[in-house]
């Protein structure tokens, strides 16, 4: 048997196992009714955000003072705010900011947390000790306080807010990836690969990263929920998205000011935030249960 033959057969075996893994995942996931519902909900929210100009019944910025604090009706399905802006249209456009911001924050967290986690888990020793200690120290500072501190130093705007949330969440991703990397490292086939002279980088790429992907997928779903919530909180305080642009947090914050005149102005953005965060959490739990027993939520 030539070397080329050997390589081909090993790739074939590998793709067969991933295929069966995928089949097992799909079979399990199909039974997770709540998780599927959550996924469908999130897809609907994402699609209406992307096609907002076509989906929204009104221009989210067009004012009509005669419709100030209008209740829900045929013209404004979810009512209108003080300036007579349509709440439904504002929420649909707001989803763009909320979801995009959450994705940015999770991207920052992934870029920071995942490579360091893989390296620390594979290398162990001093590198791991230092990285873990730094992660513990960052986790000791309340997430919102650290995020606010970073925003305060960088100046308040949406990009800086998302960088801050990403930094705050990175140690959580680091921990999950690190422990997944450690458990892979203990496998005998890693020893075999190292004994036969395969470099660390290649081991990380071919063995560790594929095994880290499933717990990472679960964590990313949970992280998106966290980021939607954090963005809403920060924009609610006026430190994120700046008006007239409006994320759900901004809309909620503006509604809170006019609480007495029209309570519905907090109900709908509040529900949008709550349902989206819940959906990401339920989806994360569903993925977790479908991806195998060895993966646990932190």
């Amino acid at each position, binding site marked *: 048997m030539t070397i080329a033959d050997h390589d081909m057969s090993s790739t074939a075996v590998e793709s067969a196992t991933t295929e069966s893994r995928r089949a097992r995942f799909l079979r399990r996931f199909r039974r997770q009714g709540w998780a599927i519902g959550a996924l469908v909900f999130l897809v609907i929210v994402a699609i209406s955000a992307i096609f907002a100009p076509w989906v929204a019944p009104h221009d989210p910025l067009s004012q009509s003072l005669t419709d100030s604090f209008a209740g829900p009706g045929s013209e404004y399905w979810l009512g209108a705010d003080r300036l007579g802006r349509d709440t439904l249209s504002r929420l649909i456009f707001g989803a763009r900011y909320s979801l995009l911001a959450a994705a940015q924050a999770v991207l920052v967290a992934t870029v920071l947390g995942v490579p360091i986690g893989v390296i620390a888990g594979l290398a162990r020793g001093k590198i791991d000790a230092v990285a873990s200690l730094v992660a513990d120290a960052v986790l000791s500072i309340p*997430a919102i306080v650290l995020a606010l501190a970073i925003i305060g130093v960088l100046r308040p705007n949406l990009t800086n807010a998302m960088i801050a949330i990403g930094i705050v969440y990175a140690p959580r991703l680091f921990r999950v990836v690190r422990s997944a990397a450690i458990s892979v490292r203990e496998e005998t086939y890693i020893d075999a690969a190292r004994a036969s002279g395969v470099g660390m980088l290649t081991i990380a790429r071919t063995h560790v990263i594929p095994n880290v992907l499933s717990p990472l997928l679960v964590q990313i779903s949970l992280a998106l929920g966290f980021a939607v919530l954090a963005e809403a909180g920060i924009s609610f305080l006026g*430190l994120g998205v700046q008006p007239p642009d409006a994320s759900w947090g901004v809309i909620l914050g503006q509604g809170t000011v006019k609480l007495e005149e029209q309570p519905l102005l907090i109900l709908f953005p*509040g529900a949008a*935030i709550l349902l989206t*965060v819940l959906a990401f959490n339920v989806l994360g739990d569903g993925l977790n249960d479908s991806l195998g027993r060895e993966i646990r939520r932190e």
Partner: protein
Amino acid sequence: MLRLAARRLLKVIPLLLLVSFISFGLLNLVPGDPAVQIAGEFATEEQIEDIRAGLGLDRPWPVRYASWLGDAVRGDFGVSLFSKVSVATQIWDRLPATLSLIGLSLAISALIGVPAGTFAGWREGTVLDRFLTMGTTVGVAVPVFVAAPVLILIFGIKLDWLPATGYVPITANPIDWARSLMLPAIALALTGAAEIARQTRAGVIDVKKQDFVRTAHANGLATWQVLGKHTLKNAMIPVITVIGLQIGRLFGLSVLIEQIFNIPGLGSRLIAAVFENDVPFIQGTVLILGTVIVLVNAAVDISYGYFNPRVRAAA
């Protein structure tokens, strides 16, 4: 027990040093020349130099870190950039409101969470259990900045039972103090209550299946006696766990709560500092809260040893 405590406390030192380094390092995140950035667009050359000297930016950073940490250990966190008021004084002035808010909300969490979890666990699988479990799932997810306005609207405005916003110091009038903190503490307590209920439920279900509980039943003890004697005795453990897990979160969420309810605590001052770019205050707050949480976590770990002899034996 002492050995456990000593070993745990030893781990605290490097962690505290790193927390201090993060707080210090925040200044280096300021883009460009910190003094120019912080002074703002319309600052004079003199003001910029003033800020530069105030932050000690004319010296190399290891020297600055050493002197900053030395001052911080002695309780001196510098002065706020524009008001020139001592950061330490501001933090001590504002800490009582924040601590009373967090303390009261923990008490409310336990008062709601322990009975709810006990009922759900004892009546596992019934409609009541499912109702409570669903309530806790949703309860964990309700953001405080949604719960707080709803509470204000219902109890502060429509029913007018409690003051909607504002804060009365305990020294001024203890009853008004409790009334002014009630709504914010409830808003802050929801997540903790749900978490405690979940933990208590799991604990009760676990204990309920033990042989000694069946024996107690067989010996003719009434349900409430079995509950009280054997299961609730362990109820402190989930409460402590939640304190350990959530103390950081409570400090974080109290920032939002203080802002919404207009409470003059550390959190609302921090938000003002963020708007003002008041870096020394931000650094001092991060350092103080990080330190408090590192110490609380150590205390929680040590108290596990006290409440659970098995942990003690394992150390």
